[in-house]
């Protein structure tokens, strides 16, 4: 639990950070809640660490252009408690509030979580359900990807060497018909399954639904089939509509939840998440 030697720099501006990272050799550090444990276990051994935590331009939450724009280093706590997020995309605030514990939420960042692409992380479920976009930059410029394109596989993203996430944005006006339902792995507190749901409804009947799923398989995904099946359903039809949530999914299996149990828990918690979202819609 002792890291290898490394150099540490804490640039004060984005430009400086990007030039330090340009060679692709250095590792960005945000909250350190994932990177530092990996370094201590010597699963990661970067020679150089560039701390993004002292760059004011990366830490913001604002509402503009019809989107809620969140700087990469906004902490889970900032997202969970931001009035902008709570009013414009309450699903994201609710999800952030369920990450880890107080200490982790005070340190961990949205950019770090998304860049890390842990298959059991909470954010991806909500970001998928909300149709998030990820803006990344390197010394040469920036580009914006959909969250679906950004998340490639287990611990793998579309980030190129030298690139960092600068912003994550979701459409504003998310509406109150949402819920994040998480089944906790009892040791780590990560999601065995986490289901993020955003619905619109009229008269108790679902008009549109977006469902993001984390924890179930190697990467978080949007359950398109379930979304379609939910349209037109009232509370009574939810269980049947979400039953296919694990169909064709290569489910994770470990000592905390076998694949079969995980799939069933995805169905159960999807049902509960949709019911709770519908009740608030």
């Amino acid at each position: 639990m002792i890291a290898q030697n490394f150099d540490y720099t804490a640039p004060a501006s984005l430009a400086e950070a990007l030039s330090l990272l340009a060679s692709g050799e250095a590792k960005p550090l945000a909250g350190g809640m994932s990177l530092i444990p990996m370094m201590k276990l010597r699963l990661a051994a970067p020679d150089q660490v560039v701390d993004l935590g002292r760059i004011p331009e990366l830490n913001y939450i604002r509402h503009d252009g019809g989107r809620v724009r969140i700087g990469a280093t906004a902490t889970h706590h900032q997202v969970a408690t931001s009035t902008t997020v709570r009013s414009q995309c309450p699903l994201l605030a609710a999800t952030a509030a369920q990450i880890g514990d107080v200490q982790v939420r005070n340190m961990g960042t949205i950019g770090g979580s998304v860049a890390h692409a842990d298959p059991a992380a909470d954010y991806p479920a909500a970001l998928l359900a909300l149709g998030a976009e990820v803006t990344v930059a390197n010394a040469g410029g920036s580009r914006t990807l959909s969250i679906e394109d950004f998340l490639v596989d287990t611990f793998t993203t579309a980030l190129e060497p030298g690139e960092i996430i600068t912003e994550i944005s979701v459409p504003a006006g998310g509406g109150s018909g949402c819920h994040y339902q998480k089944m906790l792995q009892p040791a780590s507190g990560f999601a065995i399954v986490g289901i993020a749901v955003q619905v619109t409804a009229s008269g108790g009947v679902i008009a549109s639904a977006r469902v993001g799923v984390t924890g179930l398989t190697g990467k978080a995904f949007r359950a398109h089939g379930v979304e379609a099946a939910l349209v037109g359903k009232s509370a009574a039809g939810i269980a049947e509509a979400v039953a296919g949530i694990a169909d064709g999914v290569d489910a994770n299996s470990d000592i905390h939840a076998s694949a079969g149990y995980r799939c069933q828990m995805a169905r159960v918690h999807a049902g509960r998440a949709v019911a709770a979202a519908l009740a608030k819609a």
Partner: protein
Amino acid sequence: MATTTITKTEPLVGKRIRRREDPRLITGAATYVDDIKLPGMYHAAILRSPHGAARIAALDISRAAAHPGVVAVFTGKDITGVGPVPCGASLPGLRVPVHTILAQDRVYFVGHPVAVVVASDRYIARDGVDLIDVEWDVLPAVSDPEKAIAGDAPAVHPEWPDNIAFHHHQENGNVDDAFAQAEVVVKQRITSQRLIPTAMETRGVVADFQTGDKALTLYSSTQVPHLLRTLIALMLGLPENKTRVVAPEMGGGFGSKLNVYAEEALMGFVAMKIGKPVKWIESRRENYLTTIHGRGHVDYFEIAAKRDGTILGMKLKLIQDIGAYHQLLTPAIPTLSVLMMPGLYKFQNIRAHVVGAFTNCVPTDAYRGAGRPEATHGIERMVDMLAAEIGMDPVEIRLKNFVANEQFPFSTATGLVYDSGNYAAPLMKALDLVDYQGLRAQQKKAREEGRLMGIGISTYGEICAFGPSPATPAGGWESATVKIDPTGKVTVMTGACPHGQGEETTFAQITADELGIPLDDIHVIRGDTAIVQYGIGTFGSRGTAVGGAALYFALQEVKAKLKRYGAMLLESDDVSYQGGQCVCNKTGRTVSLAEMSGASYRAMKLPPNTSPGMQVTNFWEPPNFTFPFGAHIAVTEIDRETGAVQVKRYFAVDDIGNIINPLIVDGQLHGGVAQGLGQALYEQAVYDENAQLVTGELMDYAVPKATMVPWIESDHTVTPSPVNPLGVKGVGEAGTIGCSPAMVNSVVDALRPLGVKHVDMPMTSEKIWRILNSAQA
């Protein structure tokens, strides 16, 4: 209840006084081993086996030794003069593998220390570990104790191919008759899984060898500094009087630091070799791999009874997972389970056979409860199963079989003498608190609605205050010194080495009351063998029941001596000692404690047959163990869809004898229940078939967090112990012992409509979900 403002006159024993140790603990002002930084100190990191079993085909340290900053590397061939890690317990026929402090040509468990790298900082030391080249000849390993002794498993130690560490048999009464007369016999295999103690502070050692004096000071996070000193001196071939052990502030032990570890001797060895201080701090990973684990039982129980619920006898075949070696008390722990097998019940016929099974795992040893949780789990499960079998209420069957009040002191089936008890009292109080009849009515309604609600009762008994010396491996007495300075300030030195249990407060309360002085005038010192007289340590819920009693007797002696000085100063032979002063009963004149103490040091004049100075040391040998008891009730509900067990309410009514500080007692019980609940629902050390520890991190080993522990409603009955003058019994382990059977009984009760009779721990959501699925199928 509010904490009490301290005034000089009212008694402090029995008051909810806040722990005096807490301010420094919660403000970061305490000094743990890792806070000790000695000038010129080096740092050690240890290369450990990545395999459950392997031969070391080749070991090359040259790259590590040449690494800048590395000052020394030692391997198994360097430590030839150092004695093996000791096993303090003895049993007839016990097989004791030689446990060298570094592996020789073979490793026996993942984490087995192979080499130590010493460097100028801990990072370089750790880098050095990666630079040691080892060629492993990997061997088959075994991690399951039942498989280990089945006859066809790989041998953990080649010299004992059957993997049997020992057999231990105990039989009392006439078991065969009891079973022949039985109208009903219930049998069940019950496991008490391997657990990882997870003290908040891992182990750590700083060794400092003063080359001039040839004296070693060892700072170690240990529950038993004096025993460690004796045994380390023997291992290292040092005179004991040149060996000092200091246990600084400690972040918990739970039995895992009631031991002598390879690393303690290893750091002493390194310090002696390099002539410089050296520090090793255990990482959490190392802690999980190499600090003892607890439990590890597979128990086959049979209980014989009459249809009216009268228990006639019990049989037990116990397989104890030993691990690869015996640590200090490893083989003794399951024998405690046998002793406590009858629980609170009066039946007199038992037969128990224990088999110790070597496995390629880290050794098991004492962990909070140490042998008693397993026993209590067994008897309390069996009694519940018996009740279900004959259609009797679990309360009724207990009341029918309890040792009756007039039977105390009671000789048990296993040869113990229970000191005092009123076993129905906490149960009746708990039933009252929960409104048992109301709960059963609620349960009936829940069942009609298809909900799975359970009510689980455990009436535990436990053995504390270890103990009379003949019954313990290394002495069961305890010591205390009371020293009053010329200015009247009082220092208490306890040999018990409390390490988080709160005796700095409770011992001060006892002292304040006996001497009639304010708490603030009392300083309690523990944990340094150069300051404190020899002592045994804190474990087995003995701190106050044995250490507190030793203090009590020391205080009586010091009071008598003060009184003699008081009489002299007051020039009267009719004086009494009260409220921190001596009063002449005729004139009403008084002298203060400081005046009496001061006079004893100035010694201008001495009372008859009285020595100067005001210091008394007492070594107290307890005449018996103490036996606390209580009733815990868990109300649970199971989520049919997920299998999750929800604790709706948790009640604990404990009888731990007299209570010195109810606030501290609550804390001990809450923590104990949390650990029992951890075992019941979440925790399990999982080794795979290659003897790799799967739960090697807190990411995978589920210690319950605050949000996972229910509100605990607690109360007491008080049955003082006649064994010690304080009337206390011990509280450190009661919560853990009482909890797990209450939880399992509750979950089984919830699942009863589905025909479920037993569930093994941990009762994880998936396990319950599978039971629900197979029951519904």
